[in-house]
């Protein structure tokens, strides 16, 4: 194989990812989400001014994997921490990266109010319908009937409630500038997800309010499925409950072509 001058680099690991092997399970799409965020940071040239806020959840070590300044929040409180940072450093780019237990369960008040205040931050929300890090308990996003270690008989909506759709809910807040749901289950959807992440950062850079990208993501380990089957589960089981789409897009962003 000739590594000729004619060879064009078609894909390279982004610079905003550090040279660290992640602790994620093989095939876990947390890794894809990381990569997309890093690609966007690179493309927008934000690396040197970005401050990330890691959650408590499988992404707790996100701070190790990005080549940017990072803080580690208390469980669910990343939006509050991000608010604190953004308010005293309004010129920086601040994003949180949160799981569904983190964002939609314990951190519900913080995310709703960050949206309500129109906090100029970007939120990457990994909806994998489960608590990954603690070994597979039910999340607010767990599908009806789904067996988890804390819904051993399958999620009974009568007793344990219904899945919570965060994108739909937060789109209701006047402070929201960009709220969409995407999926990570195949290359096409991954490309769309990346574009959404780009727009979510653009929303922040333009001061248009709160931006969140909800990403349907897999947890092969706790779903007890192969990585590939997990992607199919997203496509077939999750998307019907969590429809993909744009729930709120600021008009300035709608005009943008990236």
């Amino acid at each position, binding site marked *: *194989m000739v*590594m*000729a001058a*004619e*060879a*064009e*680099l*078609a*894909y*390279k*690991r*982004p610079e905003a*990812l550090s*040279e660290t*092997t*992640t602790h*994620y*399970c*093989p*095939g*876990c*799409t*947390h*890794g*894809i989400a*990381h*990569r*997309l965020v*890093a*690609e966007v940071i*690179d*493309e927008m040239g934000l690396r040197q001014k970005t401050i990330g806020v890691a959650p408590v959840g499988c992404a707790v070590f996100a701070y190790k994997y990005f080549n940017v300044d990072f803080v580690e929040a208390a469980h669910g409180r990343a939006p509050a921490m991000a608010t604190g940072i953004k308010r005293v450093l309004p010129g920086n780019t601040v994003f949180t990266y949160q799981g569904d237990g983190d964002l939609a369960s314990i951190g519900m008040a913080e995310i709703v109010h960050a949206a309500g205040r129109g906090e100029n931050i970007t939120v990457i929300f990994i909806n994998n319908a489960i608590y990954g890090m603690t070994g597979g308990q039910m999340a607010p996003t767990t599908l009806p009937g789904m067996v988890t270690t804390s819904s051993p008989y399958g999620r009974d909506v009568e007793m344990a409630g219904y899945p919570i759709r965060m994108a739909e809910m937060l789109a209701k807040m006047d402070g929201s500038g960009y709220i969409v749901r995407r999926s990570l289950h*195949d*290359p096409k959807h*991954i*490309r769309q997800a*990346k574009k959404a992440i780009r727009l979510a950062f653009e929303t922040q850079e333009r001061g248009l309010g709160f931006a969140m990208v909800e990403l349907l993501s897999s947890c092969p380990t706790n779903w007890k499925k192969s*990585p*590939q089957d997990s*992607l199919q589960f997203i496509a077939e089981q999750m998307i019907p409950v969590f429809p993909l789409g744009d729930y709120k897009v600021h008009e300035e962003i709608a005009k943008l072509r*990236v």
Partner: protein
Amino acid sequence: MPVKGWIEVDERYCKGCELCVHVCPQNVLALSTGRFTPQGYHPVELNGEGCTGCAICAVMCPDAALTVYREVPQRVERKPKVEAATT
């Protein structure tokens, strides 16, 4: 004539999850079952001809383990330095 391409696998990162294997339109990827990465996984490798450098595998890879190259038929003026394939 199809574009020619090839990939490099950074074995520090590859976890042998096979997601790239499943999405490769040319079906030219497979795990190297005889070898282990430093983390104890079988790494993926090109195991056939026909890679087009389409980078779909890289778009899918959760561990950013892949670098993708594409042969350029002739010299072009404008050469974007590094552009992630998904933009």
